[in-house]
């Protein structure tokens, strides 16, 4: 036996599982080989070191953690796992659930009129809220000139996008609605209160540098306009931007817009004989194709709103000067086809 062969048997020798024949041969070699005896001793010492290693101990609480981990899963969880874990089952069930929820939502929506109305209101909200604000703010709010200019530009854009026929139809419909007129009266009352508590608003003529005494006449005029607004005739088809703006007011909002809109021309007519002046005015209107829209009794005298064709306005103004002292407070250069005039007849 060689030293190599002898050392290959060291493990089985140390573990005492060496066969009798091999044991005899190894013993014979070791008796004659000091190196192998020394090597065997070092081998035994190495194994002795290994076997002297302190046994490992599981950490505290290990048994409890194992028992917890090995505890049987509760039956509901097992049932859920069995139902949902295999994806061939899970996916169709999830898809069916999504479809059911969707169908349920649609059914509830269709079966609930309130929801549908709310949805419609949501979709039309911007158009409904913006038009009245623009129409109402023009006559009553103390908006600054740049604000008015912006509102006018906005209205003009809206008019350009609206067919004239549709605007007229909307205007007639608005004029005929009693509910709308009631709303107008309420709103007008509010506006009147605001007007009374607010500092004197600046008129367009003041903005242009003219000094006028518009506020009292204006308040009366608007009060009268509000009461009569529902009976106002439909505005003719617009022929210019200004006309279109006038026609747009009732079409985009309600009759309140029309009643609150300022007249194209307003002013005071100081007369010595009021009855004679009223008769003369009636004849003048009949001759020139004008129409008296309404009449309100003011503090100083009657306030009359009338409509007169543009081509007859120059003659109308001239005749007014004959009836008395005509002092226009609003008389713009560009006039619409049908001019709305408000006269304050005073002594």
């Amino acid at each position, binding site marked *: 036996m060689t030293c190599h062969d002898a050392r*290959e048997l060291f493990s089985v020798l140390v573990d005492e599982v060496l066969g009798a024949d091999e044991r005899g041969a190894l013993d014979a070699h070791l008796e004659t080989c000091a190196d192998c005896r020394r090597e065997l001793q*070092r*081998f035994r010492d190495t194994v002795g*070191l290994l076997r002297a*290693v302190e046994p490992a101990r*599981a950490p505290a609480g290990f*048994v409890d*953690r194992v028992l917890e981990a*090995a505890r049987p899963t509760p039956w509901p969880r097992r049932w859920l796992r069995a139902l949902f874990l295999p994806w061939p089952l899970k996916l169709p069930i999830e898809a069916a659930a999504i479809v059911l929820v969707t169908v349920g939502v649609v059914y509830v929506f269709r079966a609930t009129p309130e929801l549908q109305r709310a949805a419609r209101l949501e979709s039309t909200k911007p158009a409904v809220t913006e038009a009245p604000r623009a129409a109402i703010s023009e006559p009553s709010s103390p908006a600054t000139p740049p604000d008015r200019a912006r509102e006018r530009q906005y209205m003009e854009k809206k008019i350009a996008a609206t067919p004239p026929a549709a605007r007229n139809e909307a205007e007639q419909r608005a004029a005929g609605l009693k509910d709308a007129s009631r709303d107008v009266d309420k709103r007008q009352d509010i506006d009147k209160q605001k007007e009374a508590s607010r500092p004197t608003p600046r008129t367009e003529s003041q903005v242009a540098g003219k000094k006028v005494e518009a506020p009292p006449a204006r308040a009366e005029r608007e009060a009268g306009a509000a009461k009569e607004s529902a009976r106002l005739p439909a505005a003719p088809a617009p022929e210019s931007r200004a006309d279109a703006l006038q026609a747009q007011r009732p079409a985009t909002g309600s009759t309140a817009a029309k009643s609150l809109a300022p007249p194209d021309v307003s002013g005071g007519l100081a007369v010595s004989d009021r009855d004679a002046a009223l008769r003369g005015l009636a004849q003048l209107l009949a001759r020139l194709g004008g129409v008296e829209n309404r009449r309100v009794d003011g503090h100083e005298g009657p306030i009359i709103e009338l409509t007169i064709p543009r081509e007859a306005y120059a003659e109308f103004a001239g005749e007014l000067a004959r009836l008395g002292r005509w002092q226009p407070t609003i008389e713009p250069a560009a006039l619409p086809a049908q001019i709305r005039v408000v006269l304050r007849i005073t002594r």
Partner: protein
Amino acid sequence: MEGRIGDDSHLVDRLRQGDPRAFEDLVIAYQHRVFGVALRMLGSQAEAEDLAQEVFVRVHGAVAGFRGDAKLSTWLYTIASRLCLNRLASSDRRMIREGEETLTRLASSHASPAAELERSELEAALHRAIAELPEERRIVVVLRDLEGLSYEEIAAVLELELGTVRSRLHRARMDLREKLERFLP
């Protein structure tokens, strides 16, 4: 050495009869041995505990089908050894087990801070030397010299020929003898 495991026939009977306390007794009886194999093989206390817990959970799930052909201890070591070798074979595990820190942690896993300071260089070198063995040799030397299994049991646990067990054990011991040369008398 084999006497450490003892006679498990009564415990096996209780397990097969569904005695609810039997599994707890099994865990109590084998927790340190299973944990020890995992710790020597993996080198990390946390990882060893995780693996040992997995061993017992698997045993719990399969104990009803345990036929008793092999000793209960052999069955447990078989599961533990396989799980250890599988985990070591994973690429993630290979990175973890490198380095001195892991070996030091292994060596001091049960020592107090004071005892840890007094730990002999020999003991640390021993654990380092074991940890540096190739896995197939390490598991054999752990099962034989640290856990005290016989050659036949090791062959059964690792499903190896007896000659392969002898050979791997001898190679492992020879490696350790060289690594521990300066500590030998």
